[in-house]
């Protein structure tokens, strides 16, 4: 205990300045420049903007929709994590792949797919005369964002279950006579609390800065959020006052993130510190089987079927709707074979597609590869040091993720446009600033509960620090590290707004091609491009996902 404390302090002394410098460079300076714009016209303008009833309404809308999304996505993600990691359902590998599928879709594809599947004149309307009431409006926004965010929550909670939670305690509870429900309530869920809170934070921030979904589903209902309002301000930013208003709204998002994430992180640190001693020594062992009786097996089959049905309705049908749109000659024609064509795919493959794809893959891989050590750095500081310092750093990293892409890109341009303009490096800086928190939160849950005793034992047997981490820590962490890599890679790959603002003549990314297709105004072409993108991403990401699981 004392030795570990000393080690933690030594690591702190050296790592904390490094983390602080990187945070200042990647996130602090850009946000400071953005705040400079926001406050540029003085506090009176800030006050007048925030008290404008429409702006205030948009802020309120963002808050309550994001809070609901966080609750829905996290409870759904947690339930799914328990199902995949503890219940021993039939077809678990397929369930995992199905859960990850929404992550492959850029948000604009998801929103588009839902309107095609469940909107007026959508698939279900045409086939059965049923449409989803309220799809255009706040309910639709909450539902679609929750479906998009649930895999993030699942990854965090399942990562915690797979790599660190000690089944010994659960077995002990069962052996002592507790039923599965009691064990879940008194052992598993309390142990999962840090991961669940982490998931709540990530999904809230994900929802509050989402733009594509509220823009498509909110506009017809006259429902504005901070991000849609900010984008409209940016569109009018030839008028300096509109640019300042966009800056003020971005600053509001930063403040909201601080208000929500700060206290959550402080609480998390307290909990993690309190529990390290109590549960140290887990082996990251595989899950216990649970009840094996005939009754249990039937319940498991029903549960698996329920998850499968949810997958079909929430993910597969919207994607099929996109595919059908892409295959149909023109919008408004029935999606039957007589109207099918591949011409839309030809139109979607702009001459720049190949180069842009290569650039995007390079950038996404670089971002994911750099974000992981950056995230681990913060996780080590916050999880091990038990001091406020690591905690503040961790919260600070979240601010980049809290900003919508357009605002963060403006911030990065303001800060570094002078000397990195038009280079891939400036896009990479923006990706690191945006996704650092995502990587950190993906690995943190596991890292915090790395079995300290095992590491100490290795060190006591003469292993160096690195050897101990490599032989004991890394194998236990691999699933969540790889999951973190994949998540950052995917987010970076289908990020549209930031790179469309930051790219230069020789650094066009996929976003440029996608936005070109959208500006052609033909949804069949946009759909074809979306199908190509999702297909490509699936080819890249799904093998990685299976690999991550196979290694646990």
């Amino acid at each position, binding site marked *: 205990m004392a030795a570990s404390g000393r080690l933690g302090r030594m690591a702190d002394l050296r790592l904390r300045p490094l983390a602080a410098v990187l945070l200042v460079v990647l996130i602090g300076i850009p946000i400071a420049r953005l705040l400079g714009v926001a406050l540029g016209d003085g506090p009176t303008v800030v006050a007048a903007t925030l008290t404008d009833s429409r702006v205030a309404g948009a802020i309120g809308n963002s808050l309550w929709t994001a809070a609901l999304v966080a609750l829905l996505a996290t409870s759904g993600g947690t339930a799914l994590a328990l199902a995949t990691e503890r219940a021993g359902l039939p077809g678990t590998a397929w369930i995992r792949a199905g859960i990850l599928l929404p992550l492959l879709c850029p948000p604009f594809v998801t929103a588009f797919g839902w309107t095609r599947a469940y909107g007026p004149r959508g698939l279900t309307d045409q086939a059965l005369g049923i449409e989803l009431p309220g799809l255009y409006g706040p309910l639709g926004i909450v539902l679609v964002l929750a479906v998009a965010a649930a895999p993030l929550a699942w990854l965090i909670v399942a990562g915690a279950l797979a790599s660190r939670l000690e089944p010994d305690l659960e077995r002990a509870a069962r052996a002592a006579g507790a039923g599965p429900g009691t064990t879940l309530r008194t052992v598993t869920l309390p142990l999962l609390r840090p991961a669940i809170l982490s998931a709540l934070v990530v999904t809230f921030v994900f929802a509050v800065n989402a733009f594509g979904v509220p823009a498509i589903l909110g506009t017809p209902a006259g429902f504005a959020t901070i991000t849609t309002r900010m984008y409209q301000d940016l569109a009018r930013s*030839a*008028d300096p006052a509109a640019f300042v208003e966009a800056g003020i709204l971005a600053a509001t998002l930063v403040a909201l993130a601080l208000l929500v994430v700060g206290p959550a992180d402080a609480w998390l640190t307290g909990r993690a510190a309190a529990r390290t001693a109590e549960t140290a020594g887990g082996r990251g062992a595989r899950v216990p089987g649970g009840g094996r009786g005939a009754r249990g097996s039937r319940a498991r089959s029903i549960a698996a079927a329920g998850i499968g049905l949810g997958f079909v309705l929430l993910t597969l049908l919207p994607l099929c709707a996109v595919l059908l749109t892409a295959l149909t000659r023109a919008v408004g024609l029935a999606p039957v074979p007589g109207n099918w064509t591949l011409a839309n795919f030809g139109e979607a493959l702009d001459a720049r597609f190949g180069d842009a794809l290569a650039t995007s893959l390079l950038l996404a891989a670089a971002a994911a590869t750099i974000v992981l050590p950056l995230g681990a750095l913060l996780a080590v500081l916050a999880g091990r040091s038990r001091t406020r310092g690591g905690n503040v750093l961790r919260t600070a990293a979240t601010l980049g993720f809290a900003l919508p892409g357009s605002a963060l890109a403006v911030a990065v341009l303001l800060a570094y*446009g002078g000397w990195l303009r*038009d280079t891939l490096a400036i896009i990479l800086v923006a990706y690191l600033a945006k996704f650092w928190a995502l990587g950190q939160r993906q690995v943190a849950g596991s890292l915090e509960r790395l079995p300290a005793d095992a590491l100490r034992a290795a*060190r006591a047997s003469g292993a160096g*620090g690195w050897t101990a981490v490599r032989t004991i820590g890394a194998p236990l962490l691999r699933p969540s590290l790889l999951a973190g890599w994949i998540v950052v890679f995917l987010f970076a790959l289908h990020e549209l*707004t930031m790179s469309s603002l930051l790219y230069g003549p020789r650094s066009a990314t996929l976003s440029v091609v996608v936005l070109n297709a959208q500006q052609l*105004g033909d949804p069949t072409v946009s759909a074809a491009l979306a199908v190509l993108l999702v297909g490509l991403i699936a080819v890249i990401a799904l093998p990685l996902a299976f690999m991550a699981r196979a290694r646990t």
Partner: protein
Amino acid sequence: MSTPARPTSFDRTRSLAATAVGLLLVLAACSSGGSSPRPSSTSAPGGTTLPSAAAQPGGTITLYTSVTQATVDAVADGFRDAHPGVTVDVFRAPTAEVAARIATDLQSGGIRADVLWLTDPLSIAPYADRGLLQAWSPPSAAAIPAAYRADTFFGTRLLNMVIVRGASVTPGPADWRDLLAADLRDAVGIPDPGFAGSAFAALAHFDQAAGYGMPFYRSLKDNGATQVKSPDDVTTGVAEGRFKAGITLDNSARTAIRKGSPIALVWPGSGAIAIYSPIAAVAASPNLVGADAFVEFTLSGPGQALIAGTGWQPVVGPGGPAPEGTQVSPDWAAAFGRQRELLDRYRAIFGG
């Protein structure tokens, strides 16, 4: 026993950080390394110092534009053929991204483009008001109708706001006011002026047009009209049968009709709302000679023909889709500077 760990873990972290920094530098190098023209264009030895060079454009020009990629590509390629000495760098993005990029440029030293080519007059006028655009008369500008140009920016092509209706909706609306008919109740789609510049131009037009004004939007709302994000979303909604009719851009309706969507384009009896897509040279451009050459080429016969070839109505000359009736325009000068007010009044009716 913790002694050996300290240097090791520290070295490890440091080497990771070094790798990250190294990667950044490599990325910076690969994207800017192959292209030396950019720095040389900012120092611009050609145009300003040597009077004799002023006649022959050279160096590099950077174009910021929100015009469709195919159109920009065609015109830029044509310009390169006409002026092989000039390198043209293009930054193309939707209006909001272009405006945001210019705004950040202005926060850090000035617009880094030599030419701006945007979608509608309202999105370029504020730059003219701030004295950021060059006031001059391109030789070809004389042929442009006065309604489609200003002192600093000039129309290149026309976008027309028209009515779109479902093919089976007959007789259907013939003019804007018919969108208020009882049989179109809950079945009209309109684009959101907060998102789409063209929709804002329509808002400016109706605000000024006799007998319309804001009450027109109020009546649309009372008749159950739905706002969607863009004119394309209106076209799609009508094609799918979600709406019976709506307000959209002629180009959007034509694209869908060409591919077989069951819709019809209705040229409003009182005239389509014509929106010109303006181009301007940036006053502070270090390569004003090159910038002016590009603007002039776009307005000239060959430039206009290239624009027509990509499916747009050129502002002068033949080619492209012909207008099917009269074209009306808002008094742009009166609309400049009232964007915020008009949008607020619109949002009071339709929300957003």
